[in-house]
């Protein structure tokens, strides 16, 4: 368990760095697109639009992974809070198992999705679509790791109470 926690913490930091860098990079192609149209300083590249779109896809998926670990995906706070820690843990287990189902779908079908991408290249840059499609199984894997840690914590809490 401590190993999983350490690994997840390191993985989470990598995701945080990656999304920050991508967000900074995202500004570049769109700026180039404007400058190339209005100035003679740089040629009119055609790859800028596609690179920006692909950066966005990765930012979305990285952000989704990050939000699984820090529990910041939008949810609805309508049910009354459980009165005991045990009740609270049961509520969280239901949520985390439901999210895990989506994670498993992302991993299993995402793997096929990635292989499907392997056979295709993008229209403008000729990049293998694997580079984009792989984000889905990776998100599935991140869900498994992060939600696994949370579920182990919840179960430990339940057991501690039961004992």
């Amino acid at each position: 368990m401590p190993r999983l926690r350490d690994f997840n913490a390191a993985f989470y930091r990598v995701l945080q760095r990656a999304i920050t860098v991508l967000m900074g990079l995202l500004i570049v192609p769109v700026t180039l697109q404007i400058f190339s149209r209005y100035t003679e300083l740089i040629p009119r590249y055609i790859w800028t639009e596609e690179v920006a779109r692909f950066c966005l896809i990765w930012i979305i998926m990285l952000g989704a992974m990050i939000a699984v670990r820090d529990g910041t995906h939008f949810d609805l706070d309508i049910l009354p809070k459980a009165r005991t820690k045990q009740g609270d843990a049961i509520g969280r287990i239901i949520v985390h198992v439901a999210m895990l189902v989506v994670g498993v779908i992302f991993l299993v079908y995402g793997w096929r999705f990635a292989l499907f991408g392997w056979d295709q290249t993008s229209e403008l840059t000729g990049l293998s679509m694997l580079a984009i499609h792989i984000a889905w199984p990776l998100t599935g894997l991140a869900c498994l790791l992060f939600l696994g840690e949370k579920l182990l914590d919840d179960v430990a809490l339940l057991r501690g109470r039961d004992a």
Partner: protein
Amino acid sequence: MTALDVGLIMFGAFAVLIVLRVPVAFALGLACIPVFFIDDRLTPFLLLNEMLKSYNSFILLAIPFFMLSANLMNSAGVTERLMELARTMVGWFPGGLGHVNVVVSMIFAGISGSSTAEAAGIGGVMIPAMKKQGYDTEFTVALTACAAVMGVIIPPSILMVVWGGVMSVSIGALFLAGVLPGVMIGFSLMAAVYVYAKQRGYPVYARATLREFFCAAWRALLPILTPLIIVGGITGGFFTPTEASVIAVLYALLLGLFVLRTIEWGKVPELLYDSARFAAISLFCIGTASAFGWLLAYFHLPQLFVDAVKSYGGGITSVGFITAIAFLIIGCFIDAIPAIIIVGTVLAPVAKSVGMHPLHFAIVGVISIAFGLVTPPYGLCLMIACALGKTTIAKAFKDTMVLLGLMLLVLGFVILFPDVVLALPRWVMPKFVQ
């Protein structure tokens, strides 16, 4: 399976899951899964494919950029400059600081496309200032939250970018269409501040001199040029909405780092991270919501609504009210972006069938869904304002409902008189508005 069966399974599963606190984006994806397995022609592979198709959009790129520019402007401390300008304009009205709050929100709405950034940025400065002057906390919080709603109605607007991208409506025309309704909401809030101030004896500022006004306007000039650059750039055909959003980022960086020098270089990565993460969470919902909407359309569910409205003989006004009510109800429970995709795609064919103008339909939808930002249980702006004012939603509820009531009157007016929406786009961009 009939369309009704599919609708019941999907909406039923979604409702149960979100009540159990499963995040909206995941609940939308999960609600599709039974249908993928029940129908032989479908597979969960389609969920992933629909997600990719929805994210692979140059228009949606504008969303992280508008969030980043709003965060940069907040960090650059432009709120104080706007506050000073607003004070010289409306501070001498009864309830001076309340009016200042509304006017700052209106101006900031022209700089930022996000209501939550607006609630956080303006609330952080205005709420303590109003409380210090003796305004009731509940009123202060309610006013700040309701005024922040203008953030997505007055251009630029993240919700309009999503609407335009998903439903193929000109974003420039949408931006223009939002101006008048947004300003009307601002005036309705100022009328409310006036009545509250008279009843409760809230303080006023001394009338500012013309010189003070010009000094304040000079200090606020650079930030308030932003809306002109963005909206002028798009409607003038100089930039696409996405390019305009990048220009807004570059302009905010230039102001914060070099001109006002209020942002330190070391803070930039943090701002990039916060904006990217928040945009990603919002946009992630678009993927699963698109798959949800795609399945509803695959089983012809929107057609059921079209037939129902036809048999009832509804016209533009009744469809306008149906749209508003549907968005207001769903806006109480889920985030604005997935709500647009689910309700918008279901109701768009209905609006088209009665000849409602796409811009009118869009603005009625965007205003109604924006009101969801202050309606509990899921009202993000109200939550942010309550946290900043150190009070609870339950306590701020009454004043919020009073202000929302006035804003609903504006919405009713917009539904009844489409020209409020169409006049400005017709004038500036006639080729986009038939």
